[in-house]
């Protein structure tokens, strides 16, 4: 097991280096000179330009710049935003809880609905429930979520007036946010109605972001269950006279969960990509909206740093899933 962990960790190093190189290289080929962008509409004189170029190190060879960037990254220094002048690292982790809260809610929704849906479909294979659930899952899987978000806004915010259209909480409420999770902070603040307001703001974005993972989990659970239900030990359990409910929940589901867990782990990337669209539509102040805004503002250090941090986060989750997989399934370790 130790060997397996070490070898997986070793592959992390070159990938991390490559990801840093790519996010560095991307920004250097972006059209538009960063200094001219920073100067804004007033423009900049040649002397001031040279001075700034020297200050940011743009006048030095590319490999020196990259090396400086890379060593900076290792120390948690991703440069400062052109627009707010604050460190990218601080901005990222100030906004990250908002995205994390939304993603966790979406994932919980997807698992809570997706797992039972998959199991029910597998157990009722070929019958009405199976067909209905799997057709719905396929629609969810094919959903353009940006349109789905607009539809939900039309119905629930526009026609019914049940949910707010944007933001994380009503402007009426103001309280400190020690955790950054609106649900926890609003509850801790003790203000009447704050928690309810936070929930109402969360509902639509959660549904929108959870739709595709929900469909994927339901489909995966169904196919994993079907595979397991055909195994010999399930037949043995049946022959022994065990009740179907016990077979499904204890024998089948537990073994079917392995591929499902992998899918859950791998959908972190999907969630982050979905967060870009969801947060933009609902003006959710998280990483996704921050990245889109920065791309439009040509805030290079932010795009560079955000791209890198998001990729590293996906890598860490994938690595964790791999390790868990090795832990559950000893066959994998041997390779």
């Amino acid at each position, binding site marked *: 097991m130790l060997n397996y962990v070490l070898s997986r960790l070793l*592959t992390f190093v*070159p*990938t991390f280096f*490559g*990801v840093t190189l*790519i996010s560095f290289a*991307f920004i250097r*080929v*972006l*059209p538009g000179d960063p200094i001219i962008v920073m100067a804004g509409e007033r423009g900049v004189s040649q002397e001031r330009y040279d001075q700034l170029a020297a200050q940011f190190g743009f006048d030095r060879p590319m490999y020196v710049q990259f090396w400086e960037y890379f060593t900076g990254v290792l120390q948690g220094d991703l440069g400062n935003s052109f627009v707010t002048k604050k460190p990218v690292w601080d901005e990222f982790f100030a906004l990250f809880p908002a995205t994390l809260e939304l993603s966790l809610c979406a994932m919980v929704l997807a698992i809570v609905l997706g797992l039972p849906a998959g199991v029910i479909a597998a157990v009722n294979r070929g019958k009405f429930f199976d067909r209905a659930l799997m*057709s719905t899952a*396929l*629609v969810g*899987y*094919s*959903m*353009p979520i*940006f*349109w*789905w978000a*607009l*539809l939900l*806004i*039309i119905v629930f915010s*526009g026609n019914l007036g049940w949910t707010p259209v944007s933001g994380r909480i009503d402007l009426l409420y103001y309280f400190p946010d020690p955790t950054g999770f609106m649900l926890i902070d609003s509850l801790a603040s003790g203000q009447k109605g704050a928690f309810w307001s936070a929930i109402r703001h969360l509902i639509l974005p959660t549904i929108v972001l959870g739709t595709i993972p929900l469909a994927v989990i339901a489909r995966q659970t169904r196919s994993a269950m*079907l595979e397991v239900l*055909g195994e010999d030990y399930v037949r043995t359990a049946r022959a022994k006279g065990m009740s179907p409910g016990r077979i499904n929940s204890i024998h089948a589901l537990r073994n079917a969960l392995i591929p499902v867990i992998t899918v859950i782990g791998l959908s972190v*990337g*999907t969630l*982050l*990509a*979905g967060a*870009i*669209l969801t947060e*933009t539509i609902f003006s959710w102040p998280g990483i996704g909206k921050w*990245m*889109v805004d920065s*791309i*439009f503002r040509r805030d290079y250090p932010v*795009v560079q740093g955000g*791209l890198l941090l*998001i*990729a*590293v986060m*996906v*890598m860490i989750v*994938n690595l964790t899933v791999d390790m868990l997989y090795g832990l559950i399934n000893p066959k994998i370790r041997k390779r």
Partner: protein
Amino acid sequence: MTDASSTQTAKAIGEERPSRLKEFWFYFRENRGAVIGLWIFAVFAFLALFGPWIAPHDATEQFRTNALQPPFWQEGGSTEFLLGTDPLGRDMLSRLIVGARFSFFVGIVVVSVAASGGILIGLLAGFAPKWVDTIIMRIMDIILAFPSLLLALVLVAILGPSLINAMIAIAIVLQPHYVRLTRASVMSERQKDYVTSARVVGAGTLRLMFVTVLPNCLSPIIVQAALSFSTAILDAAALGFLGMGAQPPTPEWGTMLAEAREFILRAWWVVTFPGLAILVTVLAINLLGDGLRDALDPKLKRS
């Protein structure tokens, strides 16, 4: 199955064995969803090819006096504009019909570029020495570490927002999947006896790659092609929606949604129809992909 030995065995068995295409069609036809998907896809392809000649109006013509007119069944609607008009008075139906070609074009181009590049690199990784394989797969890991839409978004920001650049970006993002898939099947096919015998007979590496091994790796790649066709359409629409894909006044469905956003609470039809078009198209292609997988993958067949 194009290598000499298997063609001969197929001939030896003779008439009892139906042709591959027939066999494929036999299994495919059993899946009702897939057949419906195929029909919808055929309509979609037809509209993509002949859209401008079918559309009742020009997709960019502005009927200023009829701006934001609802669909014909609602009060204030008329049969001249069946699905209503957008804020600039352009006919929704015509824009949707003409828009089909952009999504279709995106799907075709992205899949051809991503698949041909991915298959080539995957074959190379499968046949090259270990260290080349390692380098190629590490690079693919790096690309896969970025969420696809984010990577495409940044790439388009670099290249400049346009439909062509969006297609390039999406193709780059999707291509590692083909590399992994091709490499994995090459790895398992390479050890089989028919490859060894081809090598013994004296087939060169290139012949082994393209003539002996590749045709036997195609099934999963075809399925992947169908699935990434729909991913490409979705991602291109998402980029258009974020203002980084096709630019107005192009009637691309995602771009149409972006233009309609501010009217969502006043005119439901400008938002509903373009999204519905995307959903139906993507759904049809996914149905088709599921059917292809069931018909092509012998492991899942009859399970």
